[in-house]
């Protein structure tokens, strides 16, 4: 392949393009205005023959850069697959002929639209080069697992089984975590009828026997530096020694604590030793070792027990946990069976408001009923200790008896889980949420960092609500905002052992994947495999820190001289840094201020009196752009005055594009990005939010230019908006006509 840049443009005439457009004119535009070295048209470019033509030009003509004027970049990707070359696509089908009426009157504007897209495609391709991959790779293949409970042990064993060495750090003196304190577990196999062995001892033995797994007990992570493939982790042990390990990826399996039952005095906790939480009951069961369970107060066998579900949970009042811990219904059923399996005459009552036993948990529920466990739908108001027994006062919701009472020997409170997620790095920036760990974080002792990340953005993985580190995404549950670091188990969502094991297995794959991608210099999800990466021209940098502050993934640190220090393997290639940079020194090989800026400038702006306004649309390529494409497939018409440029994320939009467009005489700019806020849909988490924040300042610019604020419009567009988007465009086009043409045209 020739090292010299040679650009070729190909105009397809298939799918009606040849009939609706003047292809020769477009070839002419590519040659004369786009200034490409080679321009051709073809009747059916995606055919074998068409693709061979391009391949032959690459081989024989030394073409390095390819501009294809045909269908959308989302279509015919197998045919137009040239991984060694820089490729740009001008969307003439979905973006032009399918959204315009096939009428004589529309012909001129449709052709103009197509010609502009050819100009833009040529401009873009000239400004880009094929990405070569991040050279700053790492080579460690070792997984660090933080936490030696069921989740952590699962991750360690699975990774080892896949052929990757593991370092396992556990803060206590033994492996097993909470699960090791259980008497039995909830069954996970047919027939789902009786409590089962926890299997923890077996896992511990397997880990101890595995030469591939190095275990640090009584140890914590003192410092984590680096990036995927090249993390440098210091492990401090109780004895004071510090070890350093080279790590490829990290799994945080730091689990959860039971919600503190001392916060529930109305339910008798702390007032009577016969009121215990679920962990307390497990301790009683282990002490009984299969024999009758004894009342803590007097050591006599328990004859009756009540389980209070949702104790301190699902509290809409804001005092306690507002979430449901998910596993407690099954756990109480299991614990009731501890009694019933030993002695069917022990009365066991489970007081619940909604019994939650999903999947085959329903069989476990039925089995408990068969064993004589009583289930009552009721809201427990209080538990009052008496001389010999405890009185549970509750509102029986079925019998609508507000003064229902139950006299029992023992009360078990199902208090749920609170995650051990370390420091909430965003705590100062966000309003404190009700209840839970967030409260604990601010009101009580400052939590201790778990990973001690030496990242500009803070020492731990960012949290969502209530201290959980879970991904917000439904389709992509493993996406944290720290590349190569995956959280698993109840630290990210309340869960039971079965789920934790599944979760840990999946996260192990993601961690291994991160290691593999980091070695090859490729991006991780959602642009997995992307070889481009941000490059910074430090000589132009003003050390304003916007990039280091805004990066949604904490990829950029600051060096001693306070210049941004890019850790490419942490980067997800969203371009938010590029959008943030006021001096425009950050760029990707195939996506830069220039690749977009030159497209904006390439558009032919008709004069003030043409009655042909020009509207620039910067559309998120993940949602808005596909929505526009599908609107095209439905032949939903929209204005011929718009020129659409896909962007990686709204966060990557640099305000210079907008000011340049307005200065160049565009009459309006529409920004289409994903929903932000609590239910954000941005694939880069904060990208669209940051982009929007930046753009909210554009009003000042408009005022300085003496332009109406309506000249720029920021819109939330979802991928399903195939009907809305054309309507939005058309309304905006009408609005622009109302405001009038931009005064900047003649300049």
């Amino acid at each position, binding site marked *: 392949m020739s090292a010299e840049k040679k650009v070729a443009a190909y105009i397809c005439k298939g799918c009606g393009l040849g009939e609706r457009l003047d292809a020769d004119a477009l070839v002419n535009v590519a040659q004369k205005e786009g200034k490409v070295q080679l321009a051709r048209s073809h009747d059916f470019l995606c055919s074998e023959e068409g693709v061979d033509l391009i391949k032959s030009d690459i081989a024989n003509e030394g073409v390095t850069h390819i501009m294809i004027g045909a269908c959308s970049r989302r279509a015919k990707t197998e045919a137009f697959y040239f991984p060694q070359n820089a490729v740009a696509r001008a969307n003439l089908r979905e973006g032009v002929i399918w959204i315009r009426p096939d009428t004589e009157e529309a012909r001129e504007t449709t052709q103009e639209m197509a010609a502009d897209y050819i100009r833009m495609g040529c401009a873009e391709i000239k400004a880009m080069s094929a990405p070569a991959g991040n050279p700053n790779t790492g080579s460690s293949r070792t997984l660090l697992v933080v936490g030696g409970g069921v989740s952590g042990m699962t991750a360690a064993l699975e990774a080892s089984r896949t052929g990757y060495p593991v370092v396992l750090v556990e803060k206590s003196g033994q492996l097993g975590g909470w699960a090791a304190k259980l008497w039995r577990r909830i069954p996970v196999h047919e027939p789902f009828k009786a409590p089962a062995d926890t299997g923890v001892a077996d896992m511990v033995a397997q880990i101890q026997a595995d030469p591939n797994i190095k275990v640090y007990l009584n140890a914590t992570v003192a410092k984590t530096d680096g990036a995927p493939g090249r993390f440098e982790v210091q492990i401090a042990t109780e004895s004071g020694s510090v070890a350093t390990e080279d790590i490829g990826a990290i799994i945080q399996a730091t689990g959860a604590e039971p919600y503190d039952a001392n916060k529930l005095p109305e339910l008798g906790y702390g007032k009577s030793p016969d009121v215990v939480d679920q962990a307390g009951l497990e301790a009683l069961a282990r002490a009984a070792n299969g024999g009758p369970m004894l009342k803590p107060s007097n050591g006599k066998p328990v004859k009756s027990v009540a389980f209070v579900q949702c104790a301190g949970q699902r509290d809409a009042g804001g005092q306690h946990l507002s979430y449901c811990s998910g596993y407690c219904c099954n756990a109480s059923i299991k614990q009731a069976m501890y009694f019933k399996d030993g002695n069917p005459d022990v009365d066991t009552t489970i007081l619940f408001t909604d019994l939650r036993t999903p999947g085959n948990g329903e069989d476990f529920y039925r089995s408990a009923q*068969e064993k004589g466990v009583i289930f*009552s739908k009721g809201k427990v108001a209080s538990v009052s200790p008496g001389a010999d027994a405890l009185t549970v006062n509750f509102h*029986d919701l*079925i*019998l609508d008896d507000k003064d229902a009472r139950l006299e029992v020997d023992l009360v078990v409170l199902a208090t749920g889980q609170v995650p051990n997620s370390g420091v909430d790095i965003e705590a100062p920036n966000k309003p404190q949420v009700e209840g839970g760990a967030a409260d604990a974080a601010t009101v009580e002792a400052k939590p201790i960092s778990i990973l001690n990340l030496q990242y500009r953005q803070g020492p731990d993985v960012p949290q969502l609500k209530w201290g959980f580190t879970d991904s917000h995404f439904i389709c992509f549950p493993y996406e944290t905002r720290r590349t190569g670091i995956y959280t698993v188990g109840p630290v990210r969502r309340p869960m039971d052992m079965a789920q934790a094991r599944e979760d840990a297995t999946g996260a192990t794959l993601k961690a291994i994947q991160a290691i593999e991608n980091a070695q090859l210099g490729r991006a991780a999800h959602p642009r997995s495999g992307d070889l481009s990466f941000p490059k910074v021209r430090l000589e132009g940098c003003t050390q304003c820190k916007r990039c280091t502050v805004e990066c949604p993934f904490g990829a950029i640190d600051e060096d001693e001289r306070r210049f941004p220090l890019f850790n490419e393997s942490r980067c997800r290639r969203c371009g938010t840094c590029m959008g943030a940079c006021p001096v425009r020194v950050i760029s990707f090989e195939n996506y830069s201020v220039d690749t977009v800026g030159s497209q904006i400038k390439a558009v032919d702006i008709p004069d003030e009196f043409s009655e042909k306004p020009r509207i620039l649309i910067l559309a998120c390529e993940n949602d808005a752009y596909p929505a526009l494409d599908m609107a095209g497939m439905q032949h939903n018409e929209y204005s011929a005055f718009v020129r659409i440029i896909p962007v990686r994320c709204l966060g990557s939009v640099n305000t210079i594009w907008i000011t340049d467009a307005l200065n160049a005489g565009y009459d309006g700019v529409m920004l289409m990005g994903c929903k932000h806020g609590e239910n954000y849909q941005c694939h880069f988490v904060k990208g669209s939010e940051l982009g929007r924040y930046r753009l909210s300042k554009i009003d000042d610019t408009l005022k300085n230019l003496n332009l109406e604020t309506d000249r720029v419009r920021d819109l939330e567009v979802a991928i399903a908006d195939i009907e809305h988007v054309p309507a939005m465009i058309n309304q905006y086009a009408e609005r622009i006509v109302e405001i009038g043409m931009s005064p900047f045209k003649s300049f």
Partner: protein
Amino acid sequence: MSANAQMATKYKNNFLKEVEEQVEMGEWVKMCMQCGVCSGSCPTNFHPGWEHPPQEIFMMIRAGKREEVLTSPSMWMCTSCYNCIVRCPRKLPITHIMHGLANYAHRLGVAPKMQPTRSFAKLFWNNCVKTGRVNELKLSVGLYFKDGLSQGIRNGMAMKDVALGLLKAKRLNPFELFGGHKCKDQNGIHAMLKKARELEEKRKALKAAA
């Protein structure tokens, strides 16, 4: 001590256990998950006099509301339509449980005294086992006269048109009052039923004693 008091004492207020052991299909009560499909399926649901639907009765049993359950007229509202049975997601034999509860309350002598279905059920049984076959005329007459002679005549008069219609259609035979259809081996039937009752009582007493 009444039969009722005896049982209450024996089961020490564990009414659920009492029902499980003494009531036909009572062991199913604990399996109810309170969805209410039985209650909504009952054809007499929308009539007054129906205090507690099956699902609520089951909850009351679990809550130990012995007196309220056994004296309730609700079980006597069952038309044996079996809607509840075929719809119950837990496959509880609800019709039979309701029958069983009614039977138990009746046995203990605590079922509502004036409950008409109770009277009719008693009449029906006695009528059919007397000769081995039902004598419809005697059954009707017995029903009308259950509350005494004058009420009986009034009831009879009210049903006069129905009776006349059947009479004309030869589906009511006045001579049934004097004899009528019967099985040949009435003695055998009586002995057999006596034995059956003894065996059943023995089994239930054994359970209560355990």
